[in-house]
C-alpha cells in the first residue's frame, strides 16, 4: 500500500510538471493542485482490495438497483427489480415472470425510487433492501444474501407510490404512501369533482422477522392530498411516521400553479402504534381489493404470484389522537428525521429555508390541544408551537436531508445546485459545496438510521452535461462523492450511474460480505424440473409440450443433440447448472427464440420457453464464457414438420 501511495504521488508530481509546463502563461492557479492528488488517494481502491461501503443506488426509470462500492464508485452488480433484465433472464424466464405480475397483468417495468435497508433497534442490520415501484404501485424486497429480488407486493388503492419504501426502527413495517390522490375504490367519476372525493392511501406493510415475508396490515385512507416523501420516527419518536404533502389545495389541473397556492402544506404525523392497536382490537374495515403478491423461493428457484382479494382500511377520523397535521411552508418535498428522532425536517422546495419541527414541542402542543383548525377531521397544529428551528441557508429549493454521526445535517438544494451542511439544534450553516448539476437525493451510509457512518455523502444529480465525454443527447446521470470526515466537505470523486439514480442506501461492507452466498446448493434444489445429476437428463413429450431436462457443466450441455421436435411444439428448456463453484454460471441461448437468454447460477435451475416455427437444425450455446472450451459448449435441436414421425431422441458424446 505504501508503495502504491508513493508511486501515485510520483505520478501526480509528473502530471503537475507537465501541466505546469503547458501553462506557463497561465495565471498560476492550478486546479490539479495538492488537494486533488490527496483526493485521488481517498477514492483509490487498489486491485484486489475492497471498498469500505456498499451503496444500493436506485435506477429510477430503469426499474432496478445498482450495487456500487464507495469510495471507488465501482459498479458490482445490477439487481433487476421491477424491469425485465435480459442479462440474466429475469422477467423472461418462466420462474421469474410471476415476479412482474400485477392486477393489471404482466407489467415488466417500473420506476424504482427509494431503497431502504432493514433495521434492528434503529441500526442497519443488512438483512434486506426494500424499494418502491412508483408507477404501478409496488414494494419489492431484495435478499442481501443473494442480492436478488425475492418478493414484490402490489399496493392497491394507490397511485404513484412515492412516499415509500421506508422501514421503521425494527423493520416492523415498510411504509408505502401514495403520491397521487385517487378515488378509493377506483370508479368512473368527473375529475373536476376530485376535491373531497379522492383519498390518499398510506399502507403499512408488516414484515415477518424470520422470512422477511410482507403483507399489508392496514391502509390509512388519508385526505386526498399528494403524499410526497416520508420517514419513520426513531428513538424518542419511534411509533410515529411523518409524511410530507403537497397539493393540499386539491387542485387537479395545471398543478405547478394550482398546487402552489397555499403558503403552507402539511407534514402528516401518524401515530402508527395507536392505529396498530386499534387494528389489533378489531378496528378498520375490510375492503374488496385486487392486488398481486409475488414471492420467489430460493429452493424451488421459482416465483409464485397470488392475487389478494381484500385489504384492511382505516378511516383516520375514527381514531382520535392518531394523526395530526404540522403546517410546513412552501410545498415540502423531503421529510427527514434526525438520528435522535427529535427533529422532523420539512424542505419547502419552493423556498430558501428549511423547517425543522420539534417532536417534543409537537407532543406538548397535542397534549395542550393547541390546534389551528382541522382538515377533514384531522387536527392541524399551530406552526409556531411545533417549530423547532429554521435553517436560513441562502440556497434555493431544498429537497432532502441526511445526517452524520456528529450531529450535522446535509441538505441538497436543487435550484441552487449545492449541498449545505448545518448543525442540528442550532440550525447554523457550517459549509456549502456546489454539485454538478442539480442534485436530487443525497445519501450517507446509515444516514437513514440512528447510527450513521458519516464518512461520505453521495450526491445524486439530475443533469450530467459537461462532466464527461459527450455521448449524444442522452447520457447517464452523475453521482458525486464528498468526503465529510472534516469540518468542510470536499468533492473527491464523481462517476456515472445507470438509469436515474433517484436515492440510495448504504452500509459498511462488513455487514454484508460474510453473509453473501457464493452458490446455490444442488442438494437444496427443489425445482420441479431440476435434475440432481447429468445422468437424469432427458426429454419428455406431453402432447404439444416438450420438456427438456438439461444439465450444464464445464464445458458441455447434457444432452447436446435433440431430435423429434416438431413445428408447433412448445419446448421448455429446464436447465440445471451442476457446478458448485463460486462465480461459474452457464448461459443458454436458442437461435430465433422470442425471449432472452438465461443465465443460470451454480446449483440453480431456470426454464426458458421456445416455440419452434421453422423446420431445420438449430443451434444453441452457452452465453457465459465459462472455460477454455466455452466456445465448444453448444448443441443442436432438429425441428421436423408438424406431421413428421421422427422419434424423440437425445444424446451426448455419441457418433
Amino acid at each position, binding site marked *: 500500500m505504501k508503495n502504491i501511495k508513493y508511486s501515485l504521488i510520483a505520478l501526480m508530481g509528473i502530471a503537475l510538471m507537465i501541466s505546469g509546463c503547458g501553462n506557463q502563461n497561465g495565471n498560476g492557479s492550478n486546479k490539479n493542485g495538492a488537494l486533488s492528488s490527496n483526493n485521488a488517494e481517498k477514492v483509490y481502491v487498489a486491485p484486489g482490495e475492497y471498498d469500505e461501503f456498499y451503496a444500493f443506488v436506485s435506477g429510477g426509470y430503469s426499474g432496478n438497483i445498482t450495487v456500487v462500492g464507495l469510495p471507488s464508485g465501482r459498479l458490482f452488480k445490477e439487481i433487476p427489480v421491477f424491469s425485465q433484465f435480459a442479462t440474466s433472464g429475469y422477467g423472461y424466464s418462466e420462474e421469474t415472470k410471476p415476479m412482474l405480475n400485477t392486477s393489471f397483468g404482466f407489467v415488466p417495468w417500473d420506476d424504482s425510487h427509494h431503497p431502504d435497508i432493514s433495521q434492528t433497534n434503529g441500526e442497519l442490520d443488512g438483512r434486506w433492501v426494500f424499494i418502491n415501484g412508483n408507477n404501478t404501485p409496488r414494494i419489492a424486497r431484495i435478499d442481501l444474501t443473494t442480492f436478488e429480488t425475492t418478493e414484490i407486493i402490489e399496493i392497491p388503492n394507490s397511485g404513484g407510490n412515492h412516499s415509500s419504501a421506508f422501514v421503521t426502527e425494527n423493520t416492523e413495517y415498510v411504509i408505502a404512501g401514495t403520491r397521487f390522490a385517487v378515488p378509493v375504490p377506483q370508479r368512473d367519476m368527473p375529475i373536476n369533482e376530485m376535491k373531497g372525493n379522492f383519498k390518499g392511501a398510506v399502507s403499512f406493510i408488516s414484515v415477518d422477522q424470520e422470512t422477511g415475508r410482507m403483507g399489508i396490515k392496514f391502509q390509512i385512507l388519508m385526505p386526498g392530498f399528494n403524499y410526497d416523501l416520508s420517514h419513520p420516527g426513531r428513538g424518542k419518536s419511534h411509533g410515529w411516521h411523518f409524511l410530507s404533502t403537497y397539493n393540499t389545495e386539491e387542485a387537479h389541473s395545471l398543478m405547478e400553479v394550482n398546487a402552489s397556492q397555499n403558503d403552507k402544506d402539511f407534514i402528516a404525523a401518524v401515530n402508527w402504534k395507536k392505529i396498530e392497536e386499534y387494528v389489533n382490537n378489531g378496528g378498520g374495515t375490510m375492503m374488496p381489493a385486487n392486488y398481486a403478491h409475488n414471492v420467489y423461493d430460493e429452493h424451488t428457484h421459482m416465483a409464485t404470484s397470488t392475487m389478494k382479494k381484500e385489504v384492511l382500511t382505516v378511516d383516520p377520523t375514527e381514531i382520535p389522537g392518531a394523526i395530526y397535521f404540522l403546517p410546513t411552508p412552501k410545498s415540502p418535498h423531503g421529510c427527514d428525521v434526525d438520528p435522535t428522532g427529535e427533529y422532523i425536517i420539512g424542505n419547502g422546495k419552493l423556498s430558501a429555508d428549511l423547517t425543522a419541527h420539534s417532536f417534543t414541542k409537537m407532543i406538548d402542543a397535542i397534549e395542550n390541544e393547541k390546534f389551528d383548525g382541522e382538515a377533514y377531521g384531522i387536527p392541524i397544529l399551530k406552526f409556531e408551537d411545533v417549530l423547532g428551528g429554521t435553517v436560513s441557508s441562502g440556497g434555493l429549493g431544498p429537497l432532502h436531508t441526511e445526517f452524520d454521526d456528529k450531529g450535522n445535517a446535509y441538505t441538497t438544494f436543487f435550484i441552487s445546485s449545492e449541498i449545505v451542511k448545518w448543525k442540528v439544534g442550532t440550525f447554523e450553516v457550517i459549509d456549502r459545496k456546489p454539485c454538478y448539476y442539480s442534485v436530487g437525493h443525497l445519501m450517507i451510509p446509515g444516514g437513514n438510521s440512528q447510527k450513521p457512518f458519516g464518512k461520505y455523502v453521495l450526491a445524486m444529480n439530475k443533469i450530467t452535461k459537461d462532466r464527461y465525454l459527450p455521448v449524444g443527447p442522452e447520457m447517464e446521470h452523475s453521482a458525486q462523492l464528498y468526503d465529510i470526515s472534516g469540518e468542510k466537505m470536499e468533492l473527491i470523486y464523481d462517476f456515472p450511474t445507470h438509469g436515474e439514480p433517484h436515492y440510495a442506501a448504504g452500509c459498511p461492507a462488513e455487514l454484508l460480505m460474510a453473509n453473501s452466498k457464493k452458490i446455490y446448493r444442488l442438494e437444496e434444489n427443489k425445482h420441479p424440473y431440476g435434475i440432481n445429476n447429468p445422468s437424469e437428463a432427458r426429454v419428455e413429450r406431453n402432447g404439444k409440450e416438450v420438456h427438456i431436462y438439461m444439465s450444464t457443466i464445464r464445458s458441455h450441455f447434457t444432452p447436446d443433440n435433440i431430435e423429434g421436435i416438431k413445428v408447433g411444439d412448445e419446448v421448455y428448456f429446464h436447465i440445471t447448472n451442476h457446478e*458448485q463453484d463460486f462465480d461459474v454460471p452457464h448461459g443458454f441461448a436458442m437461435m430465433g427464440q422470442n425471449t432472452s437468454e438465461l443465465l443460470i447460477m451454480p446449483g440453480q435451475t431456470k426454464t426458458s420457453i421456445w416455440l419452434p416455427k421453422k423446420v431445420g437444425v438449430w443451434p444453441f450455446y452457452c452465453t457465459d464464457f465459462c472455460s477454455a472450451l466455452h466456445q465448444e459448449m453448444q448443441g443442436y435441436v432438429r425441428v421436423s414438420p408438424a406431421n413428421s414421425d421422427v422419434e424423440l431422441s437425445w444424446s451426448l458424446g455419441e457418433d
Partner: protein
Amino acid sequence: MKKASVIMIIGSLLLLGLFAFPLWNIELGAPQYPDPLGLNIHIDGIRGQNEFDVQNIDGLNHYIGMKVLPKSHEMWEFTWFPRINIAMVSLGVLFGLLGFLGKIKYQWFFGWFILMSILGVLGMYDFNLWMTDYGTNLDPKAILKLQNPDGTPMSYKPPLLGHSKMLNFDAYSYPRMGAYMMFAGMGLTFVAGLIGWKATKKS
C-alpha cells in the same frame, strides 16, 4: 517396565487419531484461486478441504485427462488401511498390557515399532504409486496435451512431500494432524522400548 508399558499403550492409542483427523493434505493454489483448492487424505477416503473442492478439482483435471478422484470404495487401501490401523492399535495395547503384567519383554515393543515402520513405509510407497498413476496415466482423448521441453508428456503428479509448480498452480503436499499423531505415537512406542530396555539392564 510398568512405566514403559503405559507409554506403549498411550503411543498405540495415538494412532486412533487417524480416524478423526486427515493424514495428508494436498493444496492447489493459483492466482485465479485465491482460496486454494485442497484435498485431505483420510485413512478411509479423500475429502475436499472445502465442501466442493473434490468436484472442482475433478472439473479442472478433466482438461488434462486425469481420472476423477477415487471414491472410498474404489480403492482397496481405504478399506484395508483402517483395519490394519485398528489391528496395530489393538496389538500395541495388548503388548502394553502384557508388558505391564510382566508376561512379555521390551523387545516386543521394538518389534511392534519395526512392524509399524515397515507398514508406514509401504503405505507411503503405495500412496506415491497411486499419485504417479493419477498424475501420469492420462486419458488419450484429453483436451490439453502438454509436453515437457524434452518432448515427454507432462506429469501432473503432486509432490509426495513439499512444494512443486504445475503449470500456473502451486502444489503443496504436507502431513496433517492424523499423521502427526501417528508419528508421535510411534515415537512413544520406541521410547517405551528404550525405557523397557534400560529397566531390564538395571535389574
